[in-house]
């Protein structure tokens, strides 16, 4: 557990001591890099000490104590930083954040919420005391994951009114595509020993990263950085860590895959399709976003071929765009597992003994227990969660 020492910095040749007038953070709080920690008063000048690293701070002296230059006044547990992904900065502390949540959304935000179906409560706000601004809503509108249905209102459950002949039922033949989907779904459930394990992910790191780099990303690549590229990369990362999930049963043989073609479920008017994005391990984020966008377009235009749908080793499905909080997806045979992503909702969570509001998303991994045991499935999902909560892990492959 690496502990960083927080020392009183040198202040000039004639200054050898001072008073730590006040702490700006609470003992045990998780601090961010460069966050002001304490106010130091000396004969000549008052200055601030800042955190050299993020982590959980433990005080070694009280406010008001006399200190010498170089004295260790606190330690920061830098491991604890990983658990606390930085939130996009609201202007003030918890109380004003609470009041921002009570404050009604502004007129433009209400209009956008009604038009896009995005709930302002699920978006981090950059306005005063964390209020959601029009700009925040516009950014969220552009960033909707790139596996879209035509609109949330076109959910399959909308019942068309009966024809005016007065019949209480109408009868249509299943399209071949729908018949095939139906057959495969049933087969998947009958063949595999299927069950689902769950976890949750704090989306704030990804949200912050997207907010920070969106403009540069668009400028360079001509399209937006969505969420799916993060999910895909997290899955590739987890597949590497838990190769048992990247395998299939064929008769009585276990086939291990050494490539990373990931299927992305796309909902279309004709039904559910899962075009495969090839070699997600070699594609960059932009490459993944582009491939998903192209595949979704082909699916919607009815231009998907059989080849597009074959050869995937894993599938990602996102019910969150329709508002699903949690679900148990069905595996896409002959694959052995499927990751379900859901709506990102702001929830109160406990963090270092405090209640904080974070944008949380439930993760569901349905898997074939004939091949993958519980420990592997849970570990896989934890790896996905960790990579989403701390995208640096993708870079460092840890």
């Amino acid at each position: 557990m690496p502990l960083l020492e927080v020392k009183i910095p040198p202040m000039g040749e004639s200054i050898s001591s001072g008073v730590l007038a006040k702490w700006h953070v609470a003992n045990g709080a998780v601090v961010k890099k460069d966050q002001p920690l304490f106010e130091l008063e000396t004969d000549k000048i008052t200055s601030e000490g800042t955190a050299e690293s993020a982590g959980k701070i433990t005080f070694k002296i009280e406010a008001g104590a006399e200190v010498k230059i170089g004295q260790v006044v606190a330690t920061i547990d830098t491991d604890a930083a990983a658990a606390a992904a930085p939130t996009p900065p609201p202007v003030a502390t918890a109380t004003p954040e609470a009041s921002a949540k009570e404050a009604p959304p502004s007129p433009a935000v209400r209009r956008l919420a009604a038009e896009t179906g995005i709930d302002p409560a699920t978006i981090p706000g950059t306005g005063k005391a964390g209020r959601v601004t029009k700009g925040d809503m516009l950014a969220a509108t552009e960033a909707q994951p790139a596996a879209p249905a035509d609109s949330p209102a076109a959910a399959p459950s909308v019942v068309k009114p009966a024809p005016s002949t007065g019949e209480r039922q109408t009868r249509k033949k299943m399209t071949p595509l729908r018949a095939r989907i139906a057959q495969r779904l049933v087969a998947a459930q009958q063949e595999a020993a299927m069950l689902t394990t769950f976890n949750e992910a704090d989306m704030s790191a990804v949200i912050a990263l997207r907010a920070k780099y969106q403009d540069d990303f668009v400028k360079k690549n001509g399209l937006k950085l969505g969420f799916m590229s993060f999910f895909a990369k997290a899955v590739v990362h987890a597949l590497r860590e838990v190769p048992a999930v990247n395998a299939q049963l064929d008769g009585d043989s276990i086939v291990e895959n050494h490539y990373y073609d990931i299927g992305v479920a796309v909902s279309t008017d004709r039904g559910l399709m899962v075009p495969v994005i090839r070699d997600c391990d070699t594609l960059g984020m932009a490459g993944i976003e582009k491939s998903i966008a192209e595949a979704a377009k082909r699916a919607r235009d009815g231009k998907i071929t059989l080849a597009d749908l074959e050869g995937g080793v894993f599938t990602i499905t996102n019910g969150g765009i329709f508002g699903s909080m949690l679900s148990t997806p069905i595996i896409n045979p002959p694959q052995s597992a499927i990751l379900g992503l859901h709506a990102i909702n702001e929830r109160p969570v406990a963090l270092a003994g405090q209640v904080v509001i974070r944008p949380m998303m439930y993760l569901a991994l349905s898997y074939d227990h004939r091949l993958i045991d519980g420990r592997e499935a849970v570990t896989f999902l934890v790896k996905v969660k960790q990579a989403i909560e701390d995208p640096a892990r993708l870079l460092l492959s840890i």
Partner: protein
Amino acid sequence: MDSFDLIVIGAGPGGYVCAFRAAQLGLAVALIDKRATLGGTCLNIGCIPSKALLHSSEHLAFAQHHAAEHGLKLGSIEIDLAALMQRKDAVVAKLVGGVAQLAKARKITVVTGAASFDSANTILVGEQKLTAKNIVIATGSAPVELPFLKFDGKTVVSSDDAIAFDSVPKKLVVVGGGAIGLELGSVWSRLGSDVTVVEFLPKIIATYDDDIVRTFTRLLQKQGLKIETGAKVTGFAAGALTAERGAEKLSFPADKVLVAVGRRPFTDGLALDRVGIELDEKKRVKVDARLRTTAPGVWAIGDVVAGPMLAHKAEEDGVAVAEWIAGKAGHVNWDLVPAIVYTDPEVASIGLGEEGAKAKGLAVAIGKFNFAANARAIAAGNPDGFTKIIADAKTDKILGAQILGHNAGELISEVVTHMEYGGSAEDLARTIHAHPTMTEAVKEAALAVSKRAIHAL
């Protein structure tokens, strides 16, 4: 030796508000001012007397030039300058009296006299010694004097004198086309002076956008003021102000010259060097982000530190410092200080102008709306000017606004409020504005940002 929690030097808007807030927070406060009456420059010789004169002279201008339109036959109108000045004095007296009453009710010890530092926590006023753990310097500013055009109080004057002439000068030349010069120039022009404003920069009120300034200049000229820009004043001799415009030599005959080229921070006689309080390169008291000087326990606010030299900014500084001293969370948003020129029509601004935003490389969307298309403006006979809102092209966040029109100073307030909450032009446009009011012109400008103004194409 009298001991306090807080000593405030200077009882202008910064100083007295700081003292009042500190008293609210339970501190024992001493408030020192050289002047027998409280209120500083603002109440005694600045904002307030000039506004009284502006309103009196606006009524005169209405009576002379517009009454007939309204079917009012007033015959010949005489000006009793003494009575006009008496009214101005009465307004001032009422306000300084009010401040004194509030100070008394709050049990603030008021000391009259010139203050100087004996040590970082001891102040001398004459023979009296006062000590406090915290001291606030709120000594404000004084008119800048040009070295070749020194004030003599009679012919070459500052705004201090120009609010109290005992007769209407025949020819008044105003050096400086900023708010103070234009306001006082307007007053005397309406009262009958032949007024010429001589400005060094290529435009008057140079911090405003070009479109606002062009229309404003034209309106002032229609009112009879002569505006000379790009002219560098060189001296005053033989009853005429001399100036240069490039190679061209100019001469403006004048009975009085009002020099209004700015104000300088005032720290004379405080003995700041005695306690290590440093000044910056513009002779303002050097302070950190919390308005603390280089002497521990000493703070400085208002015109004497950096930032817009405006009374409301000084007031906010004063409140924040009182709150910091009392261990609370003070706060000033120095980015959202509105500014107003109290001519007729008024000019008001908040935040970034179009030119300011472009200079920062921001992509902006602009919405404008003419008062000539506003129902109330037409009914009231105030059709001049327009509203202008500057928003971020991508997020629609309001970056700033400028308004030229009757009561622009009151109208700008709602834009300031929206900006405090990070509001967008659409937020302002979707907020109901009563009809018929001039504020609808602000709403329409916000609509115009996305090309959706209802009452204009």
